[in-house]
């Protein structure tokens, strides 16, 4: 089980800020495929990965990052702080 978090418009499209996900995926990209297959709102949120960023256990990561031993994965658009 992994905690999956969504921020900004990813959160709005999917309709929730976080959820517990049972996954067999080996990488973030595999997790994205599983989520996309769930419902249209997930497919819409993950339609263009180039518009998304991912953090694995609160560190920025790539979509090919492994999920082995990972507790938390977060998806969000490019940051706009400051």
């Amino acid at each position, binding site marked *: 089980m992994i905690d999956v*978090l969504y*921020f*900004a*418009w990813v*959160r709005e499209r999917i309709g929730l800020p976080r959820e517990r996900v049972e996954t067999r995926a080996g990488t973030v990209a595999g997790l994205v495929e599983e989520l996309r297959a769930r419902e249209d709102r997930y497919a819409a949120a993950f339609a263009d990965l180039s518009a998304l960023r991912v*953090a694995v256990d*609160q*560190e*920025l990561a790539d979509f090919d990052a492994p999920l082995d031993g990972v507790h938390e994965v*977060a998806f*969000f*658009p*490019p*940051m*706009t*702080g*400051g």
Partner: protein
Amino acid sequence: MAIRVQAEPFDLGAEADTFAAAQADAGAIVTFTGVVRDLPGGGLDRMEIEHYPGMTERALGRIAADAMARWDLSDTLIIHRHGAMRAGDLIMMVATAARHRKDAFEAAEFLMDYLKSRAPFWKKEHGAAGGDWVAARDEDEDALERW
């Protein structure tokens, strides 16, 4: 080295004074303050800043530590707000103290460049036509390349 992520407003003058007074051997102090701008033509009802609690503090802590390692600094400060703000409100500030001005300036710009593109904050502008997530600017991403 202090990092504060908070919903509450902060007082630029008081923060600047406190920061400056704590520096024993610094000859140069630089501050940067980010202010909520109105929409073009006006009409900003509010700006909302979302962040990723936990990751935010880690990311800012690492950025500040990188700056301390890279320049000859005596201190750094980062304050960033989240939640709802109005035009003219202060969003965030950074401060750097160094023996020489070049270090203080460069480190402050470095902190801002990384904070803009590597710390998990997202801005949404609410106007008469509804809410819009602020898009990341290519030039903010490009700004990282100089470091």
